[in-house]
């Protein structure tokens, strides 16, 4: 793969508008995100924790191209707007994570009303787009960070806005801590809540997510046809406060490079899980790429990094309370025009462009 990329550089087929990054933090060659003629009308998204909140946002804000989502320990769309006499940050860190009682959980009726109004006013696509989609939801029974009371409201929200109950698979049967689940004994024990928040509970959650969204997928491949590629995220970012890393990652199976128009699945890490914090653990060792290889799916791994001052995002979380617009009292972090969402949308558009 590296040889191919170097030859593309040499042939002038890979051009950058900014000074190219030669390597990422761990010495991986960084390229301009190539165009693959991807089929983005079959896009889906999944994420853990802040990545799951972001997955809700991306899923609703791009519902015209989405076919499903996987939400692991995450709340409903617009969750930080649940209770009117609290700030977005207060809602995000209490109601949307570990409410004291289920009565303080996300305020689903209010969130549904607001989502409908946003759709009616054209800030997000029609909610009717969700009617033929498929969702995977997960809450570990030992998760102290985002409790089951919150994820229950995620299920309630999506049912209320039109995803059929029969198309939602909600698993709250596993005694898991706050983590993405794998079947790898080298990961943390299932019930723990500890960095890097990837736990061995005896099954590959990435596989379950993708099978729920795209029924009839083949079993994962034993081997990958290439490497995960590091790409320059900077060209997709047009705001100073996104907290997004310079480098993102993508896995493109050989068939998708050779002419098959493949759907894209966006994978969003949680807080303290970006590549600058845990290296390749999330984008290379959670089972997504093996499923991509067997089923001709492109895996896109956008990245966020910690930022201590402006914006205030010390744990490198995705934005679900408005930090990416620090000067606004009514920040937009939830429509297609939100700084992080529009950056990801641009990445999808690049992948969909015709091959050079």
């Amino acid at each position, binding site marked *: 793969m590296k040889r191919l990329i170097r030859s593309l550089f040499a042939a002038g087929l890979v051009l950058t508008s900014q000074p190219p990054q030669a390597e990422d933090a761990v010495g991986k060659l960084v390229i301009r995100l190539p165009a693959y003629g991807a089929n983005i009308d079959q896009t889906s998204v999944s994420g853990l924790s802040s990545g799951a909140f972001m997955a809700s946002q991306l899923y609703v804000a791009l519902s015209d191209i989405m076919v499903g989502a996987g939400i692991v320990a995450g709340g409903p769309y617009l969750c930080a707007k649940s209770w*009117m006499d609290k700030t977005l940050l*207060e809602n995000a860190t209490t109601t949307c994570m570990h*409410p*004291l009682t289920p009565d303080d959980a996300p305020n689903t009726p209010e969130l549904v009303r607001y989502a409908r109004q946003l759709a009616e006013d054209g800030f997000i696509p029609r909610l009717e787009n969700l009617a033929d989609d498929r969702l995977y939801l997960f809450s570990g029974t030992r998760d102290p960070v985002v409790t089951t009371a919150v994820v229950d409201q995620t299920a309630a929200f999506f049912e209320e806005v039109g995803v059929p109950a029969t198309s939602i698979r909600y698993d709250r049967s596993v005694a898991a801590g706050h983590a993405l689940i794998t079947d790898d004994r080298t990961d943390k024990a299932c019930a723990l809540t500890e960095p890097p928040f990837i736990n061995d509970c005896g099954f590959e959650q990435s596989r379950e997510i993708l099978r729920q969204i795209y029924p009839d997928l083949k079993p994962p491949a034993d081997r990958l046809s290439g490497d995960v590629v590091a790409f320059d995220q900077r060209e997709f970012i*047009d*705001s100073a406060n996104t907290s997004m890393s310079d480098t993102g990652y993508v896995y493109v199976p050989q068939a998708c490079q050779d002419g098959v128009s493949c759907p894209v699945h966006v994978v969003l890490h949680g807080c303290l899980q970006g590549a600058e914090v845990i290296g390749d653990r999330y984008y290379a060792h959670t089972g997504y790429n093996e499923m991509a290889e067997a089923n001709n799916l492109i895996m896109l791994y956008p990245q966020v990094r910690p930022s201590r001052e402006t914006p205030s995002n010390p744990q490198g979380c995705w934005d679900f309370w408005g930090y990416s617009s620090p000067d606004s*009292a*009514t920040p937009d972090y939830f429509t297609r025009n939100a700084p992080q969402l529009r950056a990801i949308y641009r990445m999808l558009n690049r992948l969909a462009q015709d091959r050079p």
Partner: protein
Amino acid sequence: MDNVTSSNAGIDTKLTEALKHWSDYASESPQNLQALFGSFNPLKDNVQIVQHMLQALYLGWTPASLGRMNPAALTDACRELAELQKAAQDKGTDCCQRFLNTTLSVGQQIAESVQGAASPQDFLGSYLDASLGILRQYEYNARAQATAFGQIQSAYRAWLQKTLENLYAQPMAETGATSSLPAPTSTQDSGSA
């Protein structure tokens, strides 16, 4: 700190490490505080809450119209309040218990850490490391307590809003205005999509 310790070749390695741990702690604490305070902006927070209220009113939140009160909702409100108070009390007890446990274990942790020290410097290094560990436990407890207070306060505020809504529940009004919806992007973030 490295300059200090590197120029004193006679200092025990364990003591050097312990001093470095304290030095790291001293530099990371202000950074954490800065990050914490950076998250709060009272003026912006107040504007944000007012905006939320305007938006809720715009979406049809009309308890202020004081229609006929629903007596059944009062029973639910009292039950929810009782549950909330019980949960708050449990949280408070947990926090006290955590502090108590840490305090009770202080002597034992220090005694165990300095046991078998081969030299005064070794003793001091172990003592410093154990003390830092205890300080971090207290810090963790304080964070847990702050989180619990946040949860409790949040729950009472949600209860108040929900109670008002349920007591004076009105049919939702439909409006066509969009003035209170957030602008798609802030000035700072404007750019081509």
